[in-house]
């Protein structure tokens, strides 16, 4: 699957597209663009396409009925078969196990375009380098010469030294530029993630998906406590269960399929604990009623929960996870209408697994590294799914959590828009009217769902002083409270500086929501220099020496 190097030699316009992420949004975008004659490289971290929603069991496990763990399998078959077809036709190259850590804009084309979001004194930031943490944009990757192997989207323009003259990149013009490809996607290979590879293209679709948000509670660091999505990922990908008796808790539409999946795979699911109030659904009845398919899906899950005898505790929350070296039990309790635990309603449930989640967060690191505008937590896009950086589209959960169907619609639109613009023409939105209509409906539905499934308002009151908030740096709630109440921190960044919360391995991905909640500030996307850890050797490799450039077949 990695035999892509140089496969595109001799490409003529329309330019090339790189799609980052092989989930529903990325595959829809790649197929839409490829079907319109664009050469696409799909770059994905997993060994197989599918993303998290359609995560596949490892091939060597020989699963003959993987659909038993999935929903909307027909849609997956269409995506999978479409991908295979386009790969066979040579229009799509699928690079697996490529962990993208940075997308670089080549040249200094847009120095004038993004000054409103990034202070000018940050220097190279507008050339595509992030605002913080990078020695300097030019020092890391100067002039489009990239470390390691290079998968060329196009033949190199005489050594691929990129002239600064790419300054002609005005919005509609993302077609193949005579100056050479305009983006370099930097990735690390394989599980060890130490070898570097770079992919070049004229345009980029970011389909980077999301990850789970978990708010802390006493005992949430015990082995046996996992994210709901993590339990599902291990089940779908590894065909394995963490234990025998599970509790599924938190809030959000993910909890039901997780509980059903665990039960179907043989776990005893002792409770599904959902903090949302069923009455909240009534307030959105009209929106929900406009989605009979979704209501049927929910009803189907409810029926399966009944069949597997999973007790549902709605308007309940997890209060504490108990155990010494591993999870032994959880305490749950009922919530009052204000979102506080009702004293005296606590109930202890023995279990060895707790799958917990409080919603999803979008992956925005690559978009922010490129300098794309962000709206709250989401990558900001226009009606064509374009970001405000020319040549960069975004689709799926990265632009707002809304599920697989919305991701498919957004990806399709992004792919069609990119294909047209790579041909140098303005696309006709009527061509994707059906997808746009679906997008509108699904966004309305997502807004209703996100309004219903909210964590308990007073979740932070359940945290003991010694409850860890930042798992990586082992920062307890008392330290965060002290930073907020006594030292005056009002934002996550100040809390980080005072406590180290968010400074560890995960770079705040696991604690940012909790820190924001404790600091009483709005949750914002965090600017991170790179989307994942990068070995110093990769960063240190000389990039301005043309002799370093490997031949491109």
């Amino acid at each position, binding site marked *: 699957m990695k035999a892509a190097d140089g496969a595109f030699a001799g490409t003529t316009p329309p330019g090339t597209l790189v799609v980052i992420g092989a989930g529903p949004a990325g595959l829809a975008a790649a197929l839409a663009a490829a079907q319109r004659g664009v050469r696409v490289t799909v770059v994905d971290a997993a060994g197989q396409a599918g993303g998290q929603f359609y995560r596949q069991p490892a091939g060597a496990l020989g699963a003959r009925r993987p659909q038993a*763990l999935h929903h909307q399998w027909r849609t997956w078959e269409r995506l999978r078969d479409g991908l295979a077809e386009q790969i066979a036709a040579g229009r799509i190259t699928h690079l697996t196990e490529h962990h993208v850590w940075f997308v670089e804009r080549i040249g200094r084309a847009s120095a004038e375009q993004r000054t409103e979001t990034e202070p000018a004194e940050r220097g190279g930031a507008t050339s595509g380098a992030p605002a913080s943490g990078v020695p300097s944009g030019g020092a890391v990757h100067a002039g489009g010469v990239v470390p390691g192997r290079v998968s060329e989207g196009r033949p190199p323009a005489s050594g691929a030294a990129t002239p600064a003259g790419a300054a002609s990149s005005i919005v509609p013009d993302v077609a193949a530029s005579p100056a050479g490809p305009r983006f370099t996607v930097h990735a690390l290979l394989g599980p060890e993630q130490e070898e570097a590879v770079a992919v070049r293209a004229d345009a980029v679709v970011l389909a980077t998906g999301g990850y789970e948000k978990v708010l802390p509670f006493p005992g949430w660091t015990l082995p*046996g406590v996992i994210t709901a999505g*993590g339990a599902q990922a291990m089940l779908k990908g590894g065909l394995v269960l*963490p234990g025998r008796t599970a509790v599924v808790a938190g809030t959000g539409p993910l909890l039901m399929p997780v509980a059903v999946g665990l039960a179907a795979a043989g776990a005893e699911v002792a409770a599904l604990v959902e903090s949302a109030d069923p009455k909240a659904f009534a307030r959105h009845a009209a929106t929900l009623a406009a989605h009979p398919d979704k209501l049927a899906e929910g009803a189907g899950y409810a029926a399966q929960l009944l069949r597997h005898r999973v007790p549902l505790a709605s308007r309940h929350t997890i209060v504490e996870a108990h155990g010494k070296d591993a999870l032994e039990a959880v305490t749950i309790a009922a919530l009052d209408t204000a979102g506080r635990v009702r004293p005296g309603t606590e109930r202890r449930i023995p279990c060895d697994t707790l799958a917990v989640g409080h919603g999803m967060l979008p992956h925005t690191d690559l978009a922010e590294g490129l300098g794309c505008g962000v709206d709250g937590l989401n990558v900001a896009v226009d009606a064509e799914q374009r970001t405000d950086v020319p040549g960069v589209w975004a689709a799926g959960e990265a632009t707002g959590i809304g599920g697989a169907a919305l991701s498919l619609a957004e990806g399709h639109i992004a792919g069609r828009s990119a294909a047209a613009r790579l041909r140098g023409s303005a696309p006709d939105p009527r061509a994707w009217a059906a997808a746009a209509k679906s997008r509108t409906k699904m966004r309305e539905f997502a807004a209703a769902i996100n309004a219903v499934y909210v964590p308990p308002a007073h979740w932070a009151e359940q945290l003991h002083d010694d409850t860890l908030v930042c798992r990586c740096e082992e920062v307890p709630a008392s330290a965060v409270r002290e930073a907020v109440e006594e030292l005056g921190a009002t934002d996550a960044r100040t809390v980080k500086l005072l406590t180290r919360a968010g400074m560890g391995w995960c770079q705040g991905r696991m604690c940012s929501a909790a820190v924001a909640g404790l600091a009483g500030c709005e949750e914002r996307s965090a600017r991170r220099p790179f989307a994942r850890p990068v070995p110093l050797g990769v960063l240190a490799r000389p990039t301005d020496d043309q002799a370093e450039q490997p031949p491109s077949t």
Partner: protein
Amino acid sequence: MNKRTPLNLARAHPGLPHTVTFDGREIPALPGRTVAATLWSAGITAWRTTRRDGEPRGVFCGIGVCFDCLVEVNGRANQRACLTPTAPGDEIRTQDGSGHGGETGEGEGR
């Protein structure tokens, strides 16, 4: 065998298991499974202790985001168990602290 298991549910016919070791003890591993899935299938849910308090940790996010499942594989510290596939004969070890022999980890990252 009507027992409900994930493998039965997906009608999996995996290749022959190989053997890996966890802290010196031999455990069977199905091809294709990650270190985390292999350890889970052997009933092991913790394989790391934290730098500050020495608390046990295992899989948390399951998709490579949280870094809680770090483990030592064939002498290499800080491998994410949820992303790393096993190979026959892999020596998997509990990772203490920073994984580089220090308790605090600070400044000892080799």
